[in-house]
Each structure stands twice: as structure tokens, then as C-alpha cells.
């Protein structure tokens, strides 16, 4: 027998502070709290550390402790390793997990430092001088044919494909209706519109409630083709083909049938209650030329008016794949690092497959430059972007812009508890249960997400100004303005950065 495993969290209620209002009971969707006559009883075993109870307790009476019961400590046989074995011995199944990579890999962003000006060039004050964060995403020719007509007017003879203009190099990544609630999507879409950026639909179609924001939405075509028809493609500002995802490179997706309610069924165009299974590969893409055909097909269907992005998971060969994508008519390649979040992924893939976004962006940018095709495509970095410093570093390594996911959810309350796949999200984000969804007020939540993007935009302007740069283009690929701190030599070569002090 294996017996009972130690509880992961312990919840305590301070009887002196508690006024027995019962808000914890109402708010906890995991069933940690219940009334026992006039007293509140706690079952810590159900706790996910989502903090909903703590956030709602008016008296700060609730305490939470992680790992209240120790295992014998061992550097190899960690708690996680042992518990995975107990679980699988019991069930014989693949372990599911939510959110991003939970293993203790070093964070490269935290080993890179940015530069600032002193004396030899003046730093710029964003309050006094313009700092441009406007970013354009899309294909560009390597050169322009500009002729001067008689009379001095300049004639542009090169035809440029439409680019996507964002006011700040931050976009909200693809999180589908299904994985998250409609309220969460509406809140983020509204924030994207307010801040002049874009948001991805994910592979869940475009619900009618999002139509008012469609010119700020990037519609996704993934391997299940859920929700895809010509109306959907035409509504979006851009189209993204999802090949892979950083949280689970090489595999598809699975939305369990119990989440497929009437609304989701209509939006995804699948029967109510049926599992929505996205296959691992696109079954019409078995080679790079097949991908190029799909890009062309989507462009043709939308009369070459919309940029088409291709999203790949950051895998070992990401740079070469990106170079292949750049040779198609695709406008941008999205590289999703191994820290990217997800509603649900097999833990073994989430934690062990793929490479960090920092290295992936650096090698993609370098490969494209080596082949002289960096202008052919924009590079969007995603997967583990936590703040404006990460954005600045990603851009200095070679990205044009970033997608955020988890950070936008956190702005709406998400505590990164990692139980998204259970559909009980007490914050109303990763759930379809109407009473839980109703907890998320799109008006309020959109303000929170917009605030986050605005705050990061202000910080980016400060970072640029300190570096004496008044336009984001001049930070892109500017690895001279980065230094590696405690990074090994091999990695510094990949990133093409010098060590601190050099």
C-alpha cells in the first residue's frame, strides 16, 4: 500500500481574528472550507493555494503554509519525484499539470543585465523627450526602390505587405475560449484595444461577444481547426497558425467534453459535450512546404490583406525552423519558450521538453541574420515574460515584440496555482462554471490588464531613456547593451553577449 500522502498545503484560521462571515466558504471552489454548525471547518487537502479565501477574508484570519509535512530531504529523490511515482503507481496514467514549467532551471533573464548611459552620451528623460515604443510586425523587403520624380516628389515603387502596428511591444498571447472564460477574454480584448495592442483568440473560435474588438484580435488556426471559417479569418486583424506551444512542444491539446457547453460548442463549431481534441501535428502539414502552402492559402482566402504569423515551440532546432518559415509568405514567427503557460499539459512535457525563450530568440535572430533574411519576418517572443525588464532583454536579444499570457491572467487575479485544467478556477478565469465566471467583472478586469500594459510601457520608456535610445527599433538585437552575469561561456556565445565588466 502507498497510503495517504502528506497534504501539500495547510490552511489555518486564527479563531481570534475570524468573525465567521463565511466568505471563505462561498469563495473556495475546491471545498476546503465548510460549516460545521456554527464553526468553520478546514480540509487542507483540497487546497490549491489559489489564495481566493485569503484575498476575500476581511480580517486576515487565514494563513497558508506550503509543505507542512516534510519528507526526508534528498537532493535527487525530491518531493515531486516521489509524489509523481506514488500517483502513477496508483493510477497508471500520465500526470496532468497546468501553468508553465515548474522545474528549478536557472532563469536566463535574471542572469542578464541592461545598460545605461553615463557621461559619454546623455540619457534621455521620457517626461521631456519623445521615446518611441511603436512597433510594426510583418514582412519587409530588404531594400526600397524610392525614385525622385521631376519636381522632387518621392515615389515609392516597392509594394509593402500590410504590417500590424502596436503602440507598445507587448501583446496578449493566445488563450482560447474554453481554456479560459469568456469574461476573461472580453476583459483582455478590451485592454488590448485600450492600449493599442493585440490579443490572440487561441484555438477556440471568436465568440460574438468579442466581435466589437475583432480589429484587435489575432485569430488562430491550430491543428483542430476549431472555429475556423472564412468569417472568422476575415474578422481578425491577423491570423496565426499554431504549430506548437512552449508548454507542450510536439503534442496537441485536449478540452474535455464537460467544458464544452452550448456557447463553446457554437464558437468552436463542435457538438456540445464532445471532447475537443487538437491533433499533435496539423494533418495537412507534414513538411515546411506544406506550411508555406497553408500560409499562402490563408493569405489567398483573405486577399493578402492580413499578416499571417506562425507560432512554434522553442525546440532545439527552432532557429532553422524559423528560417524556413521566413522563406514562406509568413509575416512573423512566434517563438514560445519552455516556460510558456498552458491550461493543461502532461507534466513530463511541460517540465522537460523545449528550450528557454532567451536562447531561442537569440539563435533565431542570429540564424535569420546569417542568412540575410531577418527583415523578411518579425520575431515575437513568448513564454515566461514576467515584467518590462524581461521584455527589454528579449528585444535586445532580437525579438520585435512579446506575447504575455500568465502575466495578463495574474493581472486579473490569477495566483498561478496551476490547477487550470480542473475547471474550478475561483477567480473566474480558467473555468466555465457560470457562478465562477460571473466573479470576473470584465469592466474591472480590463482596467487591471490595461494598467499592467501601461505600467510596463512606462517602464520600457524609462529603460530606453536610461540607455540613451529614443526608439525601440534601436534596442532590437542590440546585444551590446546586455551583459551576462554568472552565465557560462557557451551560453554567452549563444546569446552573443559579453560578461559583466567586459
Amino acid at each position, binding site marked *: 500500500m502507498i497510503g495517504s500522502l502528506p497534504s501539500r498545503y495547510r490552511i489555518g484560521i486564527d479563531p481570534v481574528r475570524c468573525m465567521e462571515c463565511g466568505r471563505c466558504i462561498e469563495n473556495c471552489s475546491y471545498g476546503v472550507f465548510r460549516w460545521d454548525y456554527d464553526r468553520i471547518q478546514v480540509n487542507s487537502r483540497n487546497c490549491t493555494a489559489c489564495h481566493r479565501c485569503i484575498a476575500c477574508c476581511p480580517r486576515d484570519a487565514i494563513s497558508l503554509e506550503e509543505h507542512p509535512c516534510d519528507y526526508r530531504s534528498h537532493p535527487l529523490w525530491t518531493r515531486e519525484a516521489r509524489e509523481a511515482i506514488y500517483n502513477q503507481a496508483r493510477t497508471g496514467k500520465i500526470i496532468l499539470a497546468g501553468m508553465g514549467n515548474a522545474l528549478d532551471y536557472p532563469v536566463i533573464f535574471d542572469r542578464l543585465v541592461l545598460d545605461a548611459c553615463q557621461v559619454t552620451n546623455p540619457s534621455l528623460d521620457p517626461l521631456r523627450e519623445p521615446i*518611441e515604443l511603436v512597433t510594426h510586425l510583418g514582412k*519587409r523587403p530588404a531594400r*526600397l526602390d524610392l525614385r525622385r520624380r521631376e519636381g522632387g516628389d*518621392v515615389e515609392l515603387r516597392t509594394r*509593402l505587405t500590410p504590417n500590424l502596428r502596436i503602440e507598445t511591444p507587448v501583446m496578449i498571447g493566445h488563450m482560447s475560449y474554453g481554456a479560459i472564460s469568456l469574461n476573461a477574454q472580453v476583459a483582455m480584448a478590451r485592454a488590448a484595444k485600450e492600449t493599442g495592442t493585440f490579443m490572440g483568440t487561441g484555438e477556440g473560435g471568436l465568440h460574438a461577444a468579442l466581435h466589437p474588438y475583432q480589429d484587435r484580435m489575432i485569430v488562430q488556426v491550430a491543428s483542430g481547426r476549431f472555429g475556423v471559417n472564412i468569417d472568422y479569418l476575415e474578422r481578425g486583424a491577423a491570423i496565426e497558425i499554431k504549430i506548437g506551444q512552449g508548454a507542450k512542444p510536439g503534442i496537441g491539446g485536449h478540452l474535455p467534453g464537460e467544458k464544452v457547453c452550448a456557447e463553446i460548442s457554437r464558437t468552436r463549431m463542435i457538438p456540445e459535450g464532445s471532447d475537443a481534441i487538437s491533433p499533435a501535428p496539423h494533418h495537412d502539414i507534414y513538411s515546411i512546404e506544406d506550411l508555406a502552402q497553408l500560409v499562402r492559402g490563408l493569405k489567398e482566402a483573405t486577399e493578402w490583406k492580413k499578416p499571417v504569423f506562425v507560432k512554434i515551440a522553442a525546440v532545439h532546432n527552432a532557429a532553422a525552423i524559423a528560417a524556413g518559415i521566413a522563406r514562406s509568405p509568413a509575416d512573423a514567427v512566434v517563438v514560445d519558450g519552455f516556460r510558456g503557460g498552458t491550461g493543461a499539459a502532461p507534466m513530463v512535457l511541460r517540465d522537460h521538453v523545449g528550450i528557454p525563450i532567451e536562447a531561442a530568440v537569440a539563435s533565431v535572430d542570429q540564424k535569420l541574420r546569417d542568412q540575410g533574411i531577418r527583415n523578411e519576418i518579425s520575431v515575437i517572443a513568448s513564454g515566461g515574460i514576467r515584467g518590462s525588464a524581461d521584455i527589454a532583454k528579449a528585444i535586445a536579444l532580437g525579438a520585435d515584440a512579446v506575447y504575455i499570457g500568465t502575466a495578463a491572467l495574474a493581472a486579473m487575479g490569477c495566483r498561478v496555482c496551476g490547477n487550470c485544467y480542473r475547471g474550478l478556477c475561483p477567480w473566474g478565469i480558467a473555468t466555465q462554471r457560470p457562478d465562477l465566471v460571473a466573479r470576473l467583472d470584465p469592466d474591472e478586469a480590463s482596467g487591471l490588464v490595461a494598467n499592467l500594459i501601461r505600467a510596463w510601457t512606462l517602464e520600457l520608456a524609462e529603460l530606453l531613456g536610461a*540607455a540613451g535610445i529614443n526608439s525601440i*527599433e534601436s*534596442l*532590437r538585437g*542590440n546585444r551590446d547593451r546586455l551583459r551576462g552575469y554568472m552565465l557560462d561561456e557557451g551560453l554567452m556565445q549563444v546569446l552573443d553577449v559579453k560578461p559583466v565588466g567586459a
Partner: protein
Amino acid sequence: MDGSGIREALSMMNERGSGEGAGYAAYGIYPDYRDCYALHVFFDGIRESKPLLDSTLAQWGTIEHDEAIPTRDRPGLRAAHTPWRYFFKPDPSLGTPEDEIVSALVMQVNAARRGALIFSSGKDLGVFKAGGWPEDVADFYRIEDYEGYIWLAHNRYPTNTPGWWGGAHPFNLLDWSVVHNGEITSYGTNRRYIESFGYTCTMHTDTEVVAYLIDLLVRRHGLDVDIAIRALAPPFWEEIDRMPEAEREWNGALRLVYASAMMNGPFAIVAANRDMMVGFTDRGKLRPMVVGECGDRLYISSEEAAIRAMEPRVESIRMPGAGEPVIGRIVA
């Protein structure tokens, strides 16, 4: 104009230098070898390095003439390298355009670092530079012996590569020479951009990319010089958005396509080729630039004092706006 005037002008601005680098570029100084590329070279260990360069040049064309650049000893200037000049004609049977051969040669020789640095490679022009005060550098190269119709000069206050002769301005590639007051904060972006077009940065200093960027945009991409400068110091998007449609379209396209060529940070730059001289600043104008005119002569300088030293009867003095290029063309 012989070189004595600009020597005088430059010495007005010695406060801007530290005695560790200065240089001059002059156009029209080699009329006898007008059709040859004048390659100015710094040799280290000339006995070993010169035969190597001779044989490389012989592979690609003919050396019409070569000689030591005439110098005179100056007490304040330690000769760190041996300056030499070649008058070189690329082999027409190679089928590659002459300019391509010469620019590839410059890149190859300078990247190889075998005791030879080609720091000037245009026709009928020459760069003269060294570590020292401007007057010493001018006297060292007997600058007053040259007659040119365009002159560039620069006084350096080095921070990055003090004393290294290769780091002094002007920087030259083929027809274009550049002097630069400032520091380019976008250097990393510009370098990575220009290197993807086959240029190699070897001088350890930011100004080098300016010469290559102008070469790329003007010679290889065929942009008019004022449009090329607009790509390097473009208007803000806010201004572009307010332009009438046709103008907005090409200005927007220019920013999109040449985003990585755009130069950031404080700078005032004067560049020249055989037909023109052009001055421009960064779009915030964080470095000074003064323009003077007298008759058919154009003067561009960091300081008015230098212009007045050279042309006491200067007729007009003005300060162009940020990013606004000033172009003086040679009227035949």
C-alpha cells in the same frame, strides 16, 4: 584649398580633443592617379606584412604605384604604424564591379588582422589620421602640401580605443568618408544589421558603421543621399502620421525597412563623397552642428569658431534643426 586652413580651424576646437587622435580627409588630391583606388594603409611590422598585402592586391588587380605616405617627424607624435599608399586598379577581367572588389578587399584585409589596416580606399581622395593633437597630425602628414576641394577633419577625445590610429576619424570606405561627434547607442543593432549585408566591423568604434551604412544605402540600394540620411535619422512616427498621404507612405516605408539602420544616441556627422558634403545630427540634436556659407563654399562644424578661423568673412551662419540634413553639392 590646401590643408593649412582646416588645420587652423580644427585647432580652434582643441578643448574637444585629448591629443590622442585626429585626422583629415581630402578629395581631389591625387589627380595623377584619378582612375586608381588610393589605398591608405597602416602597416605594423612592414617587412612581414607588406609582402602579404602586395600579393593579395596582385591577386585582384594591378598596383600602379605604391610609396610611403610622406611624413615628417613630430616631437609630440609617436609613429605607431607605417603609413603607406597604393594606387590600385582592380582587374576588369574578373567581371565583378570595381567597387565590389575593393570593398571586399578592404573587409578581408582588415578582418584578417595581419599587420595591415586599409583605412582609406576611394579614388582621388585620401584619409590622413594618427594618434595626437590635430596640429601634430597635420604636420606629420604635411597636410598643407595637399590641394583638395572637399576637406573633412576631426579631433578626437577617445574613450573606447585611446591612441589607436585606426580608431581616429575620418572613417572611409570607397568614396565615402565620415567624421562623427557623438556616441551611437544603437551600435549593436546597426552592427548586426550591416554585418548581415557582408560588411565586417573591425575598428572597434561606432563611427565605422556610419560609413558602411551610407555605402549600403546610397551605393548598393541606390537611395538618394538625403533619403538615405532620412533613413539614418528619421522623423518620429508622430510626425510621419501627420504627413500628407504620399509622403506618409514613403516615410513610413523607409522607417519600416531601414529600422535597424536608424542611428540612435547623440551625434553630429559630416560625410562626404566626391560630389557632395552632407551634415546631419540625431533627431533630438544632442550634439551641436553649425553651418556657414561664403560664396560657393560650405562649412559644417561643431563650433562656429572653427568656421570663422577658416573663413573670417563668412556670410551666413545657421544651426539646422534636429535631423535636418545640410547638403552641399559640387557644381562643375
